């Protein structure tokens, strides 16, 4: 293909212009997306006022809010609660999700399609609906209010089998000829699962652990209902929201809330960034396969 030099220049200039526009847009987007977090960090170091003020950079920097957060509020308890819930949930939930998704993806049995359809339909009910009865039954076993940590673990973990989609999408992509070859060699289905497929499944295992660990840090609805306004049973989300829930609380605890937000965000963000690769694989695969 031949083009005149002049037209070629025109294309290049156009390209440069569009790239410049894109750079400007990307810089703007980055700033807009980061700014609230920068504000949050600044406000968490503010000493002169615990209430909302009309400027970002504190007049006096200090760790007061962080110290107060640990001495004047129940933040350590909330943090510990959430950590314990995340730990247990990630282990148990991973086992459950892997069992479920592996079975539905690679084993063929009567009723498999029906089972998948039933779970799809169950998912159309709002999850909170079942909380009314679950709360009552959990309270019979004293697993609510101050003692809500085991109750919440149960609630998060028990129905986690319904969230098998992403993981199943992963197993679907592993070639079935692997299973067949192993079966011809006399392996049982159990051996295929443990010796052939599991070693190949590191990305999805890490993805499942990661999402299961992170979910309790952000859950608000279930945790609020189960902890029932008892500070000792709250997770960080409910606890920090409680800090700023009334105008009086807001004026006393606003900057401590900011400090708490920073303290929760740091470990979760670091964890997320370290395992980002697995997360991206899981998210993309899951979205494509539904």
């Amino acid at each position: 293909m031949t083009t005149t030099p002049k037209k070629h220049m025109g294309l290049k200039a156009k390209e440069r212009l569009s790239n410049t526009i894109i750079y400007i847009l990307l810089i703007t987007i980055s700033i807009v997306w980061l700014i609230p977090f920068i504000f949050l960090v600044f406000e968490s170091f503010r000493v002169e006022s615990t209430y909302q003020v009309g400027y970002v950079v504190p007049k006096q920097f200090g760790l007061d809010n962080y110290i107060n957060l640990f001495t004047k509020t129940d933040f350590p308890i909330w943090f510990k609660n959430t950590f314990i819930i995340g730990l247990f949930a990630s282990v148990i939930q991973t086992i459950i999700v892997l069992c479920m998704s592996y079975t539905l993806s690679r084993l063929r049995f009567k009723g498999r399609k029906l089972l998948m359809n039933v779970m799809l339909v169950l998912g159309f009910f709002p999850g909170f609906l079942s909380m009314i009865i679950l709360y009552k039954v959990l309270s019979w076993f004293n697993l609510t209010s101050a003692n809500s940590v085991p109750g919440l673990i149960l609630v998060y973990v028990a129905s986690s089998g319904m969230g098998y989609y992403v993981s199943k999408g992963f197993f679907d992509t592993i070639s079935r000829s692997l299973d067949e070859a192993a079966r011809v060699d006399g392996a049982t289905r159990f051996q295929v699962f443990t010796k052939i497929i599991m070693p190949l499944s590191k990305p999805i295992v890490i993805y499942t652990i990661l999402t299961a660990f992170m979910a309790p840090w952000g859950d608000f609805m279930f945790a609020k209902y189960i902890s029932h306004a008892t500070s000792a049973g709250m997770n960080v989300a409910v606890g920090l929201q409680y800090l700023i829930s009334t105008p009086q609380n807001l004026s006393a605890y606003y900057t401590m809330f900011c400090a708490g937000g920073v303290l929760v965000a740091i470990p979760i963000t670091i964890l997320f960034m370290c395992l980002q690769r697995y997360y991206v694989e899981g998210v993309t695969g899951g979205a494509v396969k539904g």
Partner: protein
Amino acid sequence: MEKTNNSKNISLFDDIGDLDLLQLTKFQTILYKIIHFFKGIPNGVASLFKYIFSLIKNFFVWIKNDLTDIVQTFVNGDYKTKLSFIIMGFGSIARGQILRGLLFLVFEIVFIVYMYVAGFHWLGKLPTLGTELPGTAYDPRLDTYVRVDGDDSFKCLLYGVLTILFILAFIYTWRLNVKQNKISEEILKSGKKLKSAKDDVSSLLDEQFHKTLLALPLTGIFFFTVLPILFMILVAFTNYDGAHDGYSNLFTWVGMDNFNSLFNLNLGANNLSVAFGEILSWTLIWAFFATFTNYFLGMFVAIMINKKGIKFKKIWRGILVLTSAVPQFISLLYVSKMFSANGLVNGMLLNTGIISDLSHIIRFWEDTTLARVMVIVINIWIGVPYLMLIVTGILMNIPADLYESARIDGANAAQQFFKITLPYMLFVTGPYLLTSFIGNINNFNVIYLLTAGGPDNPKLLTSAGTAGDTDLLVTWLFKITTGAESKYYLASVIGIMIFVVVSFLALIVYNAIPSTRNEEDYS
């Protein structure tokens, strides 16, 4: 079908067979599938009804065949089989399959004991949900009056449902036991041996491995999802609320009253149906905007970052991903306070003199339209990084030669986007769009943590408490449940309505999307 060798003669709007489909270029194939996705929607609705009808029909045919089979098994069976109809597992034990037989037998004994001890008691309470209020009774040993518990409607309903489910499980096991006898007889007749207990156990790791793997997940789902949902559906037909809590004051069946009050339009303003209609329509509007703004803006950002010649791709992506790694509740609560009346934004506007005095501050969360726009805009801020990640992954999967041939044909960037990228994305992410739409209908966190449903709307004041202009059905449900009156029955009616709306949308789309049908294609 008329066969043609020239692919250009095939109209993409007609149904074409697999052979002809192969002749199309990749691009044409994708286009063809998209056209047929939209053409499929009306058929999807029609086939849905056909499907439901055939399900009902098949159910009755199945029952008829099953009953015939049971009778035949009895008539043709030997004495072991016949006795098994009463003593479950007898046939198995008599034929040497002791473990299986014992399991059947133990199940039958447990069932009978349970029914005698508790089952019939709870079944009897189910029609009334309890009649005895707590009271006092004379205790001759203590020579005083003591408190006596009455019935607990909650327990009556819960254990009643459990008992019915247990009876169904028993019927199923009994049927299994009958079938077992028939199969065993056939195997023995053909001269083969029955499986030993050892075979049975080891098959749990092989032929029956799915049962082993599913046991734990399905138990959890049954007790924490299926049973609660069944219970809550039934609650919608009772008057269970804070005043009728079941033990200090019984609750009972009220038939369709709760549904009638939701659809009764003759009570003037401030009734439930008005509130329900308003909140439902806002929920759908919200779900639509929340889903598609995120989707298209996420795609836009991903395409910008992926464009050839743009440097620091990892940094742009990293910044966005960083923001989505921070737990949502922190971002949402902080931003909510940032835009509050005394918040940072108004404070900065005051300090810089853009607004002159306190009477001019912008009340972001107190004006209906402004609050609604704000939640959608902030949701973009929350959701776009996530979409960017998904879209980036998919963009890399689009065959590069599609773009190559488009460029040679002289298509510019916009044409490439509308003719290749967008159709491909819509096709591949169809199921995701649906799940995301459903997720947004139930998006509790964004709404509750930003506005808590506010600003409160006097029009939405009902017997169940107030609702606000940004309340979704799910946050309304939460408020009704946790509110002073705890109208559980209303909460479950709304839960059922959410279910109806969601499944209606989903069934239509699922019937029309081709990519959910061909599960095996991915293997």
